């Protein structure tokens, strides 16, 4: 169905899908950790808005609960937790340099095309209007992985991981009207617990290698002596 035939609400969902993909790209290009976490929070808020809109369009009240949950956790609690960690570890001025920004961006665009190609057969056999966004959600997952690959700071890895979860959640919303409530609650609290555990891990990594740069994990400590 062409976009002009959809209602404004459905168009708004597709627009939000586009913006979510944009935030993924922004994260890919952002070298400051504090801003990276802020963009992640923005992505969480956009995701919550898209979910709430889907709840309105599809008339699925239980999606409102997931929208509220994802706004609270991904838009507020986890970003605040991560910001606090960054400030406590004194990482708020650290630049996580990206080696070849242009190449990373090109790889990101290629991933979007790839996920479109992969999801094409799925979309063709369905009549669901929001299903066009499934390629975008797959792209968000892959872009999160790319973010984890291209970075050295452990905090950036955590943000990439969380954004993968965002992509999965978005896929569930646009493809199957959201997961069952039990699963959704479980995943949400898993993510929250993961954020806390990662926080503990940061301190562990830092106390053993004196840095959060994971490149140094490949060095043997005996080799220095």
């Amino acid at each position, binding site marked *: *169905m*062409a*976009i*002009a*035939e959809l209602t*404004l609400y459905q*168009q*708004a969902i*597709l*627009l939000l*899908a*586009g*913006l979510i*993909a*944009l935030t993924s*790209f922004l994260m890919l*290009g952002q070298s400051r950790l504090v801003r990276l976490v802020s963009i992640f929070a923005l992505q969480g808020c956009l995701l919550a808005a898209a979910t709430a809109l889907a709840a309105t369009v599809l008339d699925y009240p239980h999606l409102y609960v997931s929208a509220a949950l994802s706004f609270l956790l991904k838009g507020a609690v986890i970003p605040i937790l991560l910001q606090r960690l960054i400030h406590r570890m004194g990482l708020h001025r650290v630049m996580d340099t990206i080696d070849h*920004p*242009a190449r990373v*961006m090109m790889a990101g*665009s290629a991933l*979007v*095309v790839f996920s*479109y190609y992969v999801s094409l057969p799925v*979309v*063709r056999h369905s009549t669901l209007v929001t299903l*066009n*966004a499934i*390629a*975008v959600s797959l792209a968000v997952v892959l872009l999160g992985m790319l973010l984890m690959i291209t970075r050295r700071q452990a905090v950036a890895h955590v943000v990439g991981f969380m954004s993968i979860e965002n992509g999965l959640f978005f896929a569930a919303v646009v493809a199957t009207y959201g997961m069952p409530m039990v699963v959704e609650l479980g995943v949400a609290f898993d993510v929250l617990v993961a954020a806390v555990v990662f926080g503990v891990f940061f301190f562990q990594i830092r106390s053993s290698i004196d840095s959060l740069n994971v490149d140094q994990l490949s060095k043997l400590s005996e080799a220095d002596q």
Partner: protein
Amino acid sequence: MAWLLAILETLLFVGAAPLLAGWIKRVKCRLQNRKAPSVFQPYRDLLKLYRKQPIAPHPASWIFRAAPYIVFASTVLAAAIVPLVAVDLPTSRIADIIVLVGFFALGRTFQVLAGMDIGTAFGGMGSSREMTISSLAEPAMLMAVFTLTMSAHTTNLSQAMNYVLDTGLVLRPSFVFALGGLILVAIAETGRIPVDNPATHLELTMIHEAMILEYSGRWLALIEWASQIKLMLYGVLIANIFFPWGIAQDFSLTTLGYGMAMIALKLAVLALVLALSEALFAKMRIFRVQEYLGFAYLLSVLGMLSHIILETAR
């Protein structure tokens, strides 16, 4: 009748460009707590320059003398293509958006050649910077334009505007991205902050000013006027492609008057946004400009991808 209207519209375009420049300057002065000059000050400046005798440096060749006229003429022709008050004018029917990009390229080429012609260090530096920026900005602009043409199924500007008007309000992700990309390109191409500062003559940062440093008198007036028209061209492009509501679709007097009022309003608002962003942001280092334009290109590519992924029927 239609041709007469097209000529009148072009004259209005060319005549109103300094007014827009004056308005931007005025808003910017207000934002910076300075006393603002009159909005008609650019006209007075142009008149003063026009009355002065132009002086060509000794090593200057014919390129230096011809460049102001070519730059001005190509900009005026570009202004004739872009629908300002009414769509479906004969001038916009004979040329499409790729011709428009071509006119921009023609004017820029001669300006760059003129900058290098006299052989001063500043001219060459400005020219090389201008070419660097435009070689990065042009793909982004073309990509944004292609996103638009894929939705409208035409490269003709007035047909595209008619298409947007006919479909009514549709929230297209691709248009949002293309709008963002086009705004970034427009800022880079018209030499505004954060890419270039139009109000300074500081040697290390200037781009546009460095190229025209040797011009004086009416040649300088023509180049300044052309750059004001170019700024307005980008403003009208953005306003009329993405928000075409109010533009006249027939040639009756009331719709034309309404169209004129609407485009004036849209341009005033756009100028307000531009002045606000110029007051908020600082100029970038020249080596950051490629990151900035890379982002513009990314936005345009995302626009095209989101058109294919999210908007087409299958």
